[in-house]
């Protein structure tokens, strides 16, 4: 068995991914400590979504190491196995099960035996119903629990998806652009929600919205052309010359 070599929950070292010669990730290194909330920013094409794909098993890296809890080599596992390890992912575009009710979306996400023969004879326990009620409260959708998810507003769908992540009870949450298309009020509420979640779990947020990242007030990693070019507080990185050059143009 592998020996735990790092204290980091998520550890990426020299990760490279090429698509037809284009290097989406170029020797990317990143370490996220347990309990941390990390914001990843970067211009379009910086490799943020590819990084998520590598961590969740959708894309296999061409080189480098990706370790979870210091012992699980994520580059060898598939999406299902990685999800079982406790990594949850929220997509850029809100992806909920549109034909299911809000409640059923959460029920499907709830941590439980995922095998086919177990779901065939599944009965909800009281504990599970209580957990669903609790999550509905957290994401403020209690009143809409019986509504078909496809009929929710964009912001509500984003929250439902965050709620599904919570139901999964993951150790690490990957959240891709959670406030895209949200109103200012919703953005503010989402920041609060993520901070609340961060009390128990490690969170990695990929975001464009600088005001939102500032509101989160956490350590920021700046990605550019597939590598991390700066790391630190939002004030530190936004005064970094390289970052200004990348973001504001020369």
């Amino acid at each position, binding site marked *: 068995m592998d020996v735990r070599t790092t204290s980091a929950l998520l550890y990426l070292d020299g990760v490279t991914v090429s698509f037809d010669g284009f290097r989406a990730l170029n020797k990317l290194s990143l370490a996220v400590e347990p309990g941390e909330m990390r914001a990843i920013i970067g211009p379009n094409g910086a490799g943020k979504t590819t990084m998520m794909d590598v961590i969740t098993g959708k894309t296999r890296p061409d080189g480098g190491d990706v370790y979870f809890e210091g012992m699980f080599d994520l580059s060898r596992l598939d999406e*299902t196995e990685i999800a079982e390890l406790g990594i949850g992912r929220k997509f850029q575009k809100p992806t909920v099960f549109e034909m299911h009710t809000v409640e059923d979306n959460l*029920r499907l996400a709830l941590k439980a035996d995922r095998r086919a023969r177990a*779901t065939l004879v599944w009965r909800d326990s009281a504990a599970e119903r209580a957990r669903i009620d609790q999550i509905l409260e957290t994401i403020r959708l209690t009143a809409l629990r019986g509504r078909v998810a*496809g009929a929710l507003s964009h912001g509500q769908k984003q929250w439902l998806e965050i709620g599904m992540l919570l139901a*999964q009870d993951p150790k690490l949450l990957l959240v891709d652009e959670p406030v895209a298309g949200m109103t200012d009020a919703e953005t503010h509420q989402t920041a609060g929600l993520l901070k609340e979640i961060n009390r128990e779990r490690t969170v990695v947020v990929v975001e464009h919205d600088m005001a939102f990242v500032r509101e989160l007030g956490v350590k920021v990693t700046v990605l550019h052309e597939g590598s991390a070019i700066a790391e630190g507080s939002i004030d530190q990185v936004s005064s970094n010359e390289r970052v200004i050059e990348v973001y504001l143009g020369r």
Partner: protein
Amino acid sequence: MIAPFMTRASDRGAMVFLGLLIAVAVLVPALNLLVPPSSPFHVPTYLVALLGKYLCYALLALSIDLIWGYCGILSLGHGAFFALGGYAMGMYLMRQIGTRGVYAHPTLPDFMVFLNWPELPVYWYGFQHFPYAMLMVLLVPGVLAFVFGWFAFRSRVTGVYLSIITQALTFALMLGFFRNNFGFGGNNGLTDFKDILGFNVQAQGTRAALFVASCAALALGFLICRVVVTSKFGKVLIAIRDAEARTRFLGYRVESYKLFVFTLSACMAGVAGALYVPQVGIINPSEFAPANSIEAVIWVAVGGRGTLTGAVLGAVLVNYAKTFFTTGALAPYWLFVLGSLFVAVTLLMPRGIVGTLQHWWNERKDRRAANGGPVALTDPQPAE
């Protein structure tokens, strides 16, 4: 508030459906056997066999609805599983002929004597026993679907690519079964059946019994499908249909779910084929024709996919229309009717008959529940 009510409403739909099926299962044989032919209420024997055939098609449609309507797997080769079940039953019926064949050979079916085969091929062994043949009715389509699905779903073949390879599967089987040296009677197939379980297959009573058996098989298939789709497993199936990648990231092993439901569906199709053969009296390789499988998909689309009852309704309605059009002066136009029916349903009623009714009903319910505020129900957007 709304969700449990809707489930109860669809439960009521299921009860109505089963009630109707039981009524048909009792009335049709009763009116055939007990009412004298002179009475206007008499159901002629040919009609019993015809309705029995519709019921077999309905079971095939149900099996397609289970995978297409609930899991998004569009199989354009489901006729293959139907035909394999039919061949398994046909082999049993052939072995029952015994010395009554044209060549009066005690073990070899006529076509083997004709081809100068010295002895029965190994894969024909055991088919003289009814339980063994029935096991094969389930096992042959089931194992083929399992092996095929294992490779296809594991390699993540989805959408139109999967449809194409299912089509190729049934086409390949058709070519194989057309060959004499395959040992299934070549292009003539298996026919000239005499007995089933010792009863004459042509007899009025046997036909009525086969009809009742078809009703029972359809009811059982319907109940199995209901149990599957109303369980949490069924919710996962719908999740896979609408957002497969999301389901994977939630930690569900999508290929296991697809494999289970595909295999179950193939077994149901096999049973449908097995009941079909004694009622029509023949099974030949044309049952594997790709067009047959596509037609079965049309039945489901017309009735309403993802509704179960719609699949049954669609199969019966379209086949009734087929009987109506192909027996009269309108016979040359049947294919045009079928084609325009599919175009019309796709364009005007994409949810199918039962789907449209359900949608209309639910909207009315929602509106009443929301005190007049109409609810915008959007169609599902497929995830990347």
